[in-house]
C-alpha cells in the first residue's frame, strides 16, 4: 500500500468508480424481470447506459441482435479500462478479455462445421473492439473457408495457433470439435493463470481471489461434468483439467476423477457455500452448484470495492460484474422471447440475485 500503487491506480480507480454508477441497480433489474415483452425490456434499457448501443431500427433488434449490442458495451468498457491500466495488470485484463476471443473462435469453428454462413454466425460472436488478435474480417474469412483445418490455419498470427494446430490432428481423426475446444480452454486458462502470477503484492492477492475463483469454478465443473456426463476415465479427467487454482487444488480434481463422493469433495472445498444440494452421479444438483459458485464470484467482486482501493482488483471486479450483468440480460432476453415463467429464469439472473440492494 504505497505511493506507487496510488499513482498506478489513481486513474483506473477514478474511471471505474465513475463507471460503477452505470451498473444496473436492483430496482432496474426488478423492472426488467417484470417486463412483459422485448419492447418493454428495450424501453427500460433505453434509460440506462445501454441506450446508445440499442439506438438502431427496431425491426433490426432481434433477440440475438439485442444481446450482441449489449456486448458492444462490454467491449467498450474493456477498451476504456485496459487503456488506463499499466503493465503487468494490463496483461491480465487483456487475457480476461480474450475469453471472448476464445469463445468467438469456438463459435466460428462450430459455424464452419455446421456449414453456417457469416450472416448466421456474426451475431453469435462477441464484439471485440481494439484489443483483439482476430478481427471481424479474419473471423469472416475463417467462416468462408468452410473447412475447420483451413479456418485454423487463418489463426496463425494469434496466440492460439500452436494449440489449435496441434489439436487439429485429433479433430481430423475424431471429426469432433471437442478436442479443439478443450485444448483452447486449457491453454486460455494457463495463460490467464500466468498473467495472475506476473503480479505481486496486493495486486496478486486481489487477482488471485477473483480470477482464481473463476478458474476454480470452471475447473471443478469441468471435472464433475467429464465424470457424470461424458464418462471419461480418471486419466482423461485429469488431463482435461487444470493443476492449479485458488481453493480448488489438484487433489480435489483427482478425488473427483477417481470416483470420490462429489458432494463431500465440494463441501471440503467450500464448507460455507450456500444453496448447494447433494450432487448425484446423474448430474442432479450440478446446476445449483454452478449458480452458487457464480454468486460467490459476484460477491467477491462487490467485496473488492471495500477497503483500500488502489489495486487491480477494482477494475477486474467491475469488468466481471459487467460480464455477469450482460449474461443476465442475455438470459432475460431469451426467457422473454421464449415466454419462460418467472420462477424458471429468475434464479439464473446471478448478478441480480447476488447484488446487494
Amino acid at each position, binding site marked *: 500500500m504505497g505511493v506507487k500503487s496510488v499513482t498506478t491506480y489513481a486513474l483506473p480507480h477514478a474511471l471505474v468508480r465513475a463507471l460503477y454508477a452505470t451498473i444496473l441497480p436492483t430496482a432496474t433489474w426488478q423492472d426488467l424481470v417484470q417486463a412483459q415483452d422485448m419492447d418493454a425490456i428495450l424501453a427500460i434499457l433505453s434509460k440506462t447506459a445501454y441506450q446508445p448501443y440499442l439506438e438502431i431500427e427496431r425491426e433490426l433488434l432481434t433477440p440475438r441482435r439485442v444481446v450482441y449490442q449489449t456486448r458492444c458495451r462490454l467491449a467498450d468498457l474493456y477498451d476504456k479500462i485496459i487503456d488506463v491500466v499499466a503493465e503487468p495488470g494490463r496483461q491480465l485484463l487483456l487475457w480476461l478479455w480474450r475469453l471472448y476471443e476464445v469463445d468467438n473462435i469456438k463459435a466460428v469453428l462450430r459455424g464452419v462445421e455446421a456449414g453456417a454462413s457469416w450472416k448466421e454466425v456474426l451475431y453469435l460472436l462477441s464484439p471485440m473492439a481494439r484489443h483483439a488478435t482476430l478481427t471481424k474480417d479474419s473471423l469472416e474469412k475463417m467462416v468462408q473457408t468452410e473447412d475447420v483445418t483451413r479456418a485454423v490455419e487463418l489463426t496463425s498470427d494469434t496466440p492460439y495457433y500452436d*494449440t489449435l494446430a*496441434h489439436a487439429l*490432428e485429433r479433430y481430423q481423426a475424431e471429426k469432433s470439435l471437442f478436442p479443439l475446444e478443450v485444448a483452447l480452454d486449457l491453454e486460455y486458462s*494457463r495463460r490467464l493463470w500466468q498473467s495472475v502470477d506476473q503480479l505481486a503484492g496486493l495486486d496478486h492477492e486481489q487477482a488471485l481471489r477473483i480470477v482464481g475463483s473463476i478458474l476454480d469454478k470452471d475447473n471443478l465443473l469441468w471435472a464433475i461434468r467429464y465424470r457424470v456426463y461424458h464418462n*471419461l476415465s*480418471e486419466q482423461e479427467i485429469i488431463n482435461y483439467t487444470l493443476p492449479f487454482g485458488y481453493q480448488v487444488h489438484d487433489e480435489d480434481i483427482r478425488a473427483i476423477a477417481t470416483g470420490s463422493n462429489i458432494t463431500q469433495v465440494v463441501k471440503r472445498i467450500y464448507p460455507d457455500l450456500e444453496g448447494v444440494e447433494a450432487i448425484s452421479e446423474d448430474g442432479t444438483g450440478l446446476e445449483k452448484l454452478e449458480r452458487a459458485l457464480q454468486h460467490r464470484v459476484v460477491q467477491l467482486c462487490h467485496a473488492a470495492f471495500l477497503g483500500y482501493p488502489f489495486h487491480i482488483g477494482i477494475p477486474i471486479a467491475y469488468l466481471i460484474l459487467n460480464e455477469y450483468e450482460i449474461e443476465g440480460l442475455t438470459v432475460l432476453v431469451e426467457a422473454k422471447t421464449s415466454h419462460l415463467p418467472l420462477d424458471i429464469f429468475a434464479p439464473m439472473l446471478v448478478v441480480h440475485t447476488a447484488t446487494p440492494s
Partner: protein
Amino acid sequence: MFRPLEMSRVELAVSEQDIVAVTEALAASEAFHPTRTDQLSGGSGPNYGEKWEEKVPIFTSLEQRIQTVMEALDVDEGPPPSETPHLIEPDLAQRDVSRLEQEAQAPARELEEELCRLSRLRSQIKQLQTIAGLEVDVDELRHMRYTFVLLGTMPVANVERLQTSLELIPSVLVTLRRDNHLATVALFGTQRDAEILNRAARSAYLNPLKLPETVRGTPVEAIAALEESIKRTRLRITEYEATLERLHQMRVDHLRHLLWRVRASRTLAETIARYGRLRYTYLIAGWVPTSKLPQLEQRIKEVSEQIVVEVEKPSRKDSEHIPVALENPPPVRPFQDLVTNYGHPKYGEMDPTLMMTLTFPLIFGIMFGDIGHGLVLALLGLLLTSRAVRALQGLAGLGPLLIYCGVASTIFGFLYGSIFGLEEALTPLWTHPMENIMDILMATVAIGTLLLNLGMVLNVVNAALDRRWGHVLFDHNGLAGMMLYWSLIGLVVQFFTDNLPFSAEWLFLSAAVSGLAVTFSEVLENLVEGRRPLIEDETSTYLIQLPIEIFETVITMMSNTLSYVRMGAFAVGHGALGMVVFIMAEIVGPAHGPAYWTVVALGNLFVIGFEGMIVGIQTLRLEYYEFFSKFFSGGGMRYRPLSLIPRER
C-alpha cells in the same frame, strides 16, 4: 474546353447478320457510349435467332479455364493487344482450350503430386530427427508383443499433467526433446494397459509420430533412406518443371491471344445481349460526341450500306441522361482528374477544369511561396512524369500537378524573397509575409473575394446556359446574391474609409433590396420560371424559415470569405517554419559545420514533404468547398465509350 463536348444521340437498326461487325466497329471507334435498349426484347431474351445472353457464361467459363492453364504454365496476361481481337465461336474456343488443358494439366498434376510427396518425406524426416538419438529399429518398436511404446509430440505444458494422470498406472514417460511449445516423448508401459495409456495419451494431446510401414531400421538409417527418396523426387520435379517451361515457351503467345480474344468476345456478347431486339433486327442506341459522328458513320457504312442510322440532337430537359465527355488539352488533364474526382459536370454545364488550372497553382503558390521548395517540387514532378524510377511509376499522375505547383511556389518565392527558408537572402519583389502579416492577410482575403465572385459569375453563366432566369436573378449565388455580397463589403469598407463613390445610405438600400430578393428567392425563382406552387412547404413553415435563410446566407458569405485568410496564414506559417529550421540548425551546429547543414537539409525536406502535403490538402479544400460549391453541382453521367478490351487512358 469551357463546356463538355456536344453530344448526339445515335440510334441504329442493324440486321442480325451485321450485328457483330457493327458492334466491333462501334468499339473500334472508341466514341460510342451505349445505353440500354433491352426492354424491346421483353426482358428474358427472345426465342429466335442467336441467344447472346447464353453465350456470356460460356465465355466466362472459358476465360477461367484459360487462366487456370496460364497459371499452371506460369504465363501472365500480358498487355492488352493493340488491335481489338474479333469474336471467336464458343465451339472453336472450347476445342482449343480443351487441347491446351490436356497438354498442360498432366505435367502440372504430376508436379503437384511430386511436391506433395516431397513435403511428406520432409515431414517424416522431421519426425525421425526428434528420435534420432534412439538406437532401436523403428519396425521393432511397432511390433512389440508385451511392451507398450508410444512415440510422439505433445504440448510441453501437458507433460507434467500426463505424468500425474498415470501415477497409478505402471508406465514411464520419457521426454526425448523439448522445443518452445512441443515436447517429443516416448511413453512406455505394458500391453495390458494399452487402452488406458492410449486414452490418457490422447487426452494429453500426445500425437503419435506417423511413420509409414516402409520406414525401417534405426531412426538414423531411416533418415538416410528418406533422404535418398527426396533426391529421386527432386529429380522428377526438375523434369516436370522443364516440361512445363517448354510448354510455357511454346504456348505463351497463343494463350495470351486466346485469353484476350475470349475476353473481348464475352464483352461483345454482353453488349449485344443488352441491345433492343425485334425478330431479326437489333436496335442500338447510345451517345457520340458530335465531332466524332462523321467518323463513326463512316465506320458503320464500311460494314454495310443497309444500316439505318438516326441522329438526334438532345433536348435540354434530357441533360441528366446525357453522358458528359470532357476534352481538355493534355497540359490541363491533371486538373480535369481533380474536377471529376469531385463530380462530373452536368451536360451543358460549364467545365471548371480551366478555372481549376488557373486557381489551384495560384492558391498553392501563395501558401507555399519559396524558390527552393518550389524548384524541388517541380523537379520531383518532372521525375514522376518521366516514369524514370520504377518504384514511383504509380505516382506518375501526380507529376504534372507537382510541376504546376512547384512553378507557382517558385514565382511566389521571388515575390516573397524566400529561398529554402532563408528570408533575408533575396530582396522580395513584393513583401516578406513574416514582416507584413496584415498586408498578406488582407491581400489573400481580397483574392478570396475575387475567387468567390468568379464562382458566382460562373453560377450565373451556368444558370443562363440552362435558361433558368429566376436562378440567374435571385439565387444566393446569382445576381441578387452578388449584389448583397458587394453591398455588405461596401458597408464594411465604408466603416474604415470615406473615399467610396457610394454613400452609406445607397449601400444600405442596395443591401436591403438584394437581401429581400435572396430571402424570397424560392418564391421569386418559381414565379419567374413559371413553376407552381410558389411555396412548396406550408406557408407558416416557410415564413419561419425566412429569417434563418437570410441569416445563414450572410454568415456563409462571411465565412467563405474569411476562409481564404488561411492562404495568408499559411504564407506566414511557411516563413516561420523556415526560421525554426535555421534556429534549430544554429543550436545543433553553431560553427555552421556538417551538423548545421544536416539540420538545414532535413528541416527543409520536412517542410517540403509535410507542409507541402498540408498546403495541398488546404488548396483542394478551398477549391472544392468554397469555390466549386458556388456554381458546380456535379452529378453528371460519366462518358464511357464502348471498348471490348480495357484500354489504358
